[in-house]
């Protein structure tokens, strides 16, 4: 079965689905309330028995719908992928049905997406943060969140009091740190592109 006819087959089988631009594997867009149903048919009737990835896209603060979740399914028998996209229901408090009842592996993937984007998965058995600590007030992969971070409290109050330390925005110093490619080995410690400022010294205007 060629990819094109496979895509047409998908669109015929799920009449609510629309085609989604894709450079590689067939991709469809389905409404949030049909996501679980679609994945169940794909798993039980069409042999897509492995969820290889579950993640999300933030289209920016102005966009609506703002968040889109992506699921990649793989057929271990036919060695085929299919991508299912679905827009989240709310822009401020986005939610989407969970795929954990179908694919237990979605548990941690969805926790990570929740941690990074703040998308709540309805029906998820354990909707906690997985990378950042409980109580962290931001969702780091949202568009408005700066890479350096935002000042906030350490997770443990007693440690914060004794050490007088906070979560601080990291001094970016001109971009990601990397080792220079030329020069003596001893001078090639990783460094920022702009060494004129750091956490002690203000960034020059």
């Amino acid at each position, binding site marked *: 079965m060629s990819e094109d006819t496979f895509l047409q087959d998908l669109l015929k089988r799920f009449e609510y689905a629309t085609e989604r631009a894709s450079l590689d594997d067939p991709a469809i867009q389905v409404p949030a309330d049909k996501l679980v149903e679609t994945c169940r048919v794909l798993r039980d009737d069409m042999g897509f028995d492995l969820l290889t990835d579950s993640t999300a896209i933030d289209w920016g603060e102005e966009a609506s719908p703002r968040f889109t979740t992506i699921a990649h399914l793989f057929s271990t028998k036919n060695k085929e992928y299919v991508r299912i996209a679905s827009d989240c229901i709310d822009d401020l408090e986005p939610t989407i049905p969970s795929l954990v009842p179908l694919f237990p592996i979605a548990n941690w993937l969805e926790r990570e997406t929740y941690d990074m984007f703040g998308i709540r998965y309805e029906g998820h058995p354990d*909707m*906690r943060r997985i*990378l*950042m*600590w*409980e*109580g962290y007030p*931001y969702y*780091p992969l949202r568009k408005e*969140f*700066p*890479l*350096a*971070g*935002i000042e906030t*409290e*350490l*997770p*443990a*109050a*007693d*440690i914060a*009091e*004794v*050490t007088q*330390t906070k*979560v*601080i*925005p*990291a*001094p*970016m*110093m001109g971009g*990601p*740190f*990397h*080792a220079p490619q030329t020069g003596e080995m001893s001078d090639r*410690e*990783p460094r*920022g592109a702009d060494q004129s400022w750091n*956490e002690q010294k203000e960034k020059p205007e």
Partner: protein
Amino acid sequence: MSTEAAYGYNSKVEGEVIVSKLDTVVNWIRKHSVWPMPMGLACCAIELMASGGSRFDISRFGMEVMRFSPRQSDCMIVSGTVTYKMAEVVRRIYDQMAEPKWVVAMGACASTGGMYRSYAVLQGVDRIVPVDVYISGCPPRPEALLDGLMKLQDQIMKEPSVSNLLKKDMHPAPKALKTTAIAH
């Protein structure tokens, strides 16, 4: 090895009697029985393991007794990236170590946050624990770690150990407060 002058002993003058300072004797004992605790958090820990192996042989310097329990060790080698989430754990483990205790920040990440200029990474472990020796490198080679530990030994020789003994606690542990972590 420290010089003869540090011990104040000259066999030609004093023969079989050794006259020295108590500080020096205590420090001399301490520096040759540093028990490191590997706080292995990232790739630096691999180099730390290499230092313990036969090729680099950390035991030549009297500091080979690696213990994985903070109660049994007195030198925490923070080898790797410390995230804000892990910072609490590092500090609590440090608080559990018995006095006297030292901290080595091994590598760029532990020293300054290294290449991880990001929202998740503590920008230098010295923000939560007092660091005695910083070792540069990403990761440092085992030779660099051994050199850093020898620098620590030199530093131990200079400590006012006896007057420190009279102090109740050199590094007071934090009092228990309630944490802000939210249970789900």
